[in-house]
């Protein structure tokens, strides 16, 4: 058993074609999860009746279980649920025609929502109470204060956390290969089994993930510098 270095490059060229699916599986759940995250964070901060218990349970459960469970439960559970509904209300949905990627996206979105809500919540809490009082003192409503004063600062401060979540979900999307998605890891697996060159294929996949991670961290670093410029002292 030796390592076929030239094959790594061949595998790389093949596997990188699957990058768009990996990016879809990363970005879509994060964007949708961001909306859930803001909603859940506000529900928890303002302790809205009943809702906040549900929100607490949701965040605790999704953060407390491996993401592979979310994918599997939704992958097996959703079609069952839809079939039942379809049967009862005669909707005529054929669950076997629903692309699997949709189930993966739903699962990852729910997971992303729970993680993002924690980040947004701690971001909001970290903005000092005085900012809220100052907003009230000039005559803003609670909504205006949240929207114009608190959230912009909370989100800017959370950029490093958002980057971590982005990288985390980029990596987590590799789990989707277990439900036969042809994203980067899935493609690597295919290249590996077809050519019986496992190590080379996974090295190539590793390089792709590594490269994207470094790129994202670099962009985030620049973005953070720009967005939190207001926080640095010193007269410019």
């Amino acid at each position, binding site marked *: 058993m030796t390592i076929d270095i030239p094959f790594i490059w061949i595998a790389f060229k093949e596997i990188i074609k699957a990058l768009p699916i990996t990016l879809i599986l990363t970005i879509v759940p994060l964007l949708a999860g961001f909306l859930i995250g803001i909603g859940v964070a506000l529900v928890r901060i303002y302790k809205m009746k009943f809702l906040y218990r549900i929100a607490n349970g949701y965040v605790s459960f999704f953060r407390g279980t491996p993401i592979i469970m979310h994918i599997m439960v939704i992958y097996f559970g959703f079609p069952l649920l839809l079939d039942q509904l379809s049967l009862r209300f005669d909707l005529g949905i054929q669950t076997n025609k629903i692309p699997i990627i949709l189930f993966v996206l739903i699962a990852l979105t729910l997971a992303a929502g729970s993680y993002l809500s924690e980040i947004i919540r701690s971001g909001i809490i970290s903005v000092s109470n005085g900012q809220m009082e100052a907003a009230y003192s*000039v005559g803003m409503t609670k909504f205006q204060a949240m929207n114009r004063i608190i959230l912009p600062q909370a989100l800017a401060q959370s950029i490093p956390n958002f980057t971590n979540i982005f990288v985390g979900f980029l990596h987590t999307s590799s789990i989707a290969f277990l439900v036969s998605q042809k994203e980067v890891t899935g493609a690597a697996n295919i290249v590996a089994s077809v050519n019986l060159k496992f190590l080379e294929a996974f090295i190539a996949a590793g390089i792709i993930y590594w490269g994207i991670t470094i790129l994202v961290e670099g962009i985030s670093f620049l973005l953070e510098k720009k967005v939190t410029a207001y926080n640095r002292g010193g007269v410019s």
Partner: protein
Amino acid sequence: MIYLQGIKKSFNQLPVLKGINLKIEKGEVVTILGPSGSGKTTLLRCLNFLEKPNAGIVQIGNIIVDSEKATKKEMLAIRKQSAMVFQHYNLFAHKTVVENVMEGLIVAKKVKKKDARHQSERVLEKVGLSDKLHHYPSQLSGGQQQRVGIARALALNPEVILFDEPTSALDPELVGDVLSVIKSIAQEGITMVVVTHEMSFAREVSNRVLFMDEGVIVEEGTPLEIFHAAKEERTRRFLQRISGESFFTPLKEQVN
């Protein structure tokens, strides 16, 4: 005109304000003195419902609110009648100097952005910050930040400006600048309620001085009456201690 009747406030069953009655005429500058824990800052914060009183009536201008059944709408209406200058400035950290001043005009007063900018620049000129319009608060000294805070309040042209110990977080050499700005506003006839430890300010600028202790207004009068002919023993003792402290401060600093 401001009118308070029977304002009561407790924190965790600990009464901080025990029924405050107060009337302030338009254009009056009222200073509130008192030892820490006397309830003076709480009283100020009850005026714009940053603290909601447990009982009593608050009136600013033509808005009258019964605090026991105050709705969000009423609290907002009261806040739109007033503005506040905070001890720790509380400038909006993510907005520039001019944006800080514009914010209330745009959001609460619904002024057009362009007009808000003009008005804000004018007010900032008045407090001597025309050259800092596009700086962020973190790039300013404490004294400059507090002058922005004053401009932000002033721009709203409120019935009353509430000052919550506006100079107590400042380095000693910056206090003078801020005080002189507040003085110049006072002379324009804007109604002001000032909680402060600056005795010279209270003496020179205010029309009326209130002395508070343990949640009640112990004594009130003109600066002359309070500083030179206080009727209450508590007032006299407090003033004596304050002047004693200022006598000893330089020594203490040397020791440290």
